[in-house]
């Protein structure tokens, strides 16, 4: 049996996984992407609320459908968009604050709205999942980490790493929570492969002016946008290939916006570490969380160019809201 077994999955939902932040860092040269939560802001907030380190193993619940039964008394917190309706034994409980459940309680998250895409569930003490290459984060593409490298299924039991963890009840004030929407503004920095060598100035202006529709075929690997033919500053990829987006294989940055032929593709937590396409822009760290809440097949994205200094300052603002002291007693 699972030591300290605390939750047992009843309805695993679409693709619920154990994640940890910042994920599998330092192994990109061996081909490992970091994995970890797609929305690290909501994820870390859930952990901070229950008194865990922000990166402790916790659950990522896409499309907001999940239920489990508690096998012992535990303190939990659920974060995410308002569409996540949280109930304990069918009684509604607020998200973004801690709650206690007893042995036998059923905790359910269901969809009650249309905004946002992923909810997060943290348990005080952190989920007890072994680190593989330095992280418990699940990478589905390679079956690495988490529970046997896969999404959770009915009957999975998860223990708690530190069963004695105690912390007061906390909630995160509304003004410090991320703002979810259906029409997203996502910050970008140009490059590494932008104007003038790859894109024309007109292409870049178009990239910023277009309201991009997010393709239904988007996941933890990549957020794919609707096809668009850029003019390109070169006729082809030379020896790298016939399409001007083709490159000799290049390492990809986190948040890279690459031109996969005519399809702009934003790399996600489980993305490829390298490949043969031009990375025309990069989503800076302050905005990467938004890609975890974009709903495939429905939401839109507009890119807003920021300077490097703005990106760094915006990231400090995001981090400010995640400091453990920001959560207030209830």
């Amino acid at each position, binding site marked *: 049996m699972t030591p300290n077994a605390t939750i047992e999955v009843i309805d695993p939902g679409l693709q619920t996984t154990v994640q940890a932040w910042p994920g599998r860092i330092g192994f990109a040269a061996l081909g490992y992407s970091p994995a970890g939560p797609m929305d690290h802001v909501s994820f870390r907030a859930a952990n901070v609320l229950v008194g865990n380190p922000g990166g402790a193993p916790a659950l990522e619940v896409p499309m907001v459908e999940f239920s489990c039964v508690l096998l012992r008394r535990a303190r939990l917190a659920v974060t995410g968009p308002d569409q996540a309706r949280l109930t304990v034994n069918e009684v509604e409980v607020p998200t973004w604050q801690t709650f206690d459940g007893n042995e036998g309680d059923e905790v359910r998250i269901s969809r009650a709205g249309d905004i946002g895409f992923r909810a997060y569930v943290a348990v005080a003490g952190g989920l007890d999942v072994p*680190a593989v*290459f330095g992280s418990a984060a699940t990478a589905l593409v390679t079956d690495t980490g988490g529970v046997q490298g896969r999404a959770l299924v009915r009957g999975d039991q998860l223990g708690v790493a530190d069963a004695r963890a105690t912390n007061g009840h906390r909630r995160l004030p509304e003004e410090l929570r991320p703002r979810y929407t259906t029409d997203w503004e996502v910050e970008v920095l140009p490059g590494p492969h932008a104007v003038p060598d790859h894109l024309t100035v007109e292409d870049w202006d178009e990239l910023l002016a277009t309201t991009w529709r997010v393709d239904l075929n988007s996941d933890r690997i990549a957020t794919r946008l609707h096809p668009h033919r850029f003019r390109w500053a070169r006729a082809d990829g030379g020896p790298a290939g016939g399409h001007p987006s083709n490159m000799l294989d290049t390492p990809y940055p986190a948040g890279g916006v690459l031109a996969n032929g005519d399809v702009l593709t934003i790399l996600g937590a489980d993305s490829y570490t390298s*490949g043969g396409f031009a990375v025309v822009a990069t989503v800076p760290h302050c905005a990467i969380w938004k890609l975890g809440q974009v709903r495939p097949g429905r939401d839109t994205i507009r890119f807003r160019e920021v300077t490097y200094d703005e990106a760094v300052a915006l990231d400090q603002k995001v981090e400010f809201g995640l400091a453990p002291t920001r959560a207030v007693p209830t």
Partner: protein
Amino acid sequence: MSSALLHLIDADDGRPVVRFLQAGDRQVLVEFGEVEVDLRLNFHVHALLQDLRARPIEGALEVVPGFRAAMVRYEPAEVDRADLVEALATRAREATELADLVIPSRLITLPVAFDDEMTREAVNRYRVTTRLDAPNVGPGDNIDYIVRYNGFADREEFFARFLATTWWNAFIGYFPGLPSLYALDPLAQLSAPKYNPARMWTAEGAVGIGGPCVVLYPIEAPGGYQLFGRTLPIRTGDQPQPPAAGGPTVPDPLFRAGDRVRFTRVTEQELLDQRLQVLEGNYRFDVVTSDFVVAEHLADRERLAAEVEKVARFRRRAAERVEIP
């Protein structure tokens, strides 16, 4: 818009141009030379890599090589980007000249079974589910296509050419443990266009070629390279293990960037037997540590230059007669 080019070192005395490019707010991409399949560009990447590993720059957390570029990941709170780029530029300028460069390397020998059942299965599935009229799946299969595209007389001539060269693992990436192999023999000059559209399924262990690059598929996956055989499972040492005394599990990859690979031909049955041994943990991979002396490769290139040009011209003429997928 602001420029992504943060700094540039002009080409000088045989050294290629070096560009330092913004890649978000936590990475800088260091790119050598222009877009050409010239292994010397990759050796420059390795020279920088070697230097950064021996003498890390504070705040630069990770260096990830590609064919002609290295991605440097840093923590903006720990290092000012302008200082980082300046330090990287100094390193690039002072890096070992190729003529003096020795890259720590290992020679790995792997078995290959050509035209095995899984290769045929992947191509068949593509015909049935994706594109029946693609020139690389008929007449014949991917192997016949490679043969036509490179101007070989028959399959055996292609297999012999593939086996005759040592392959350079320029970098690892895309999937965990996936090596990108380039022929070290300047006379090999093998290449093939990629699938269009991509293939939905490839067996783990598949061996394929796209452009001049040979890859080994570490996992079952979609793909775009022309398939011609199968080798051993190459993803080793990364399955979840009980954490040793609380420490993190340490990866023990079969390949490292800068390794060399040679292939020996086996029958499909021999391969299946050896694959089983790997999966059971009873196979001893043939790995010999031996440094790679870049000067020797450069000398080969120079000595064979005229002949290389002849082969390249022959291959180009053959390729011109072949339809691209």
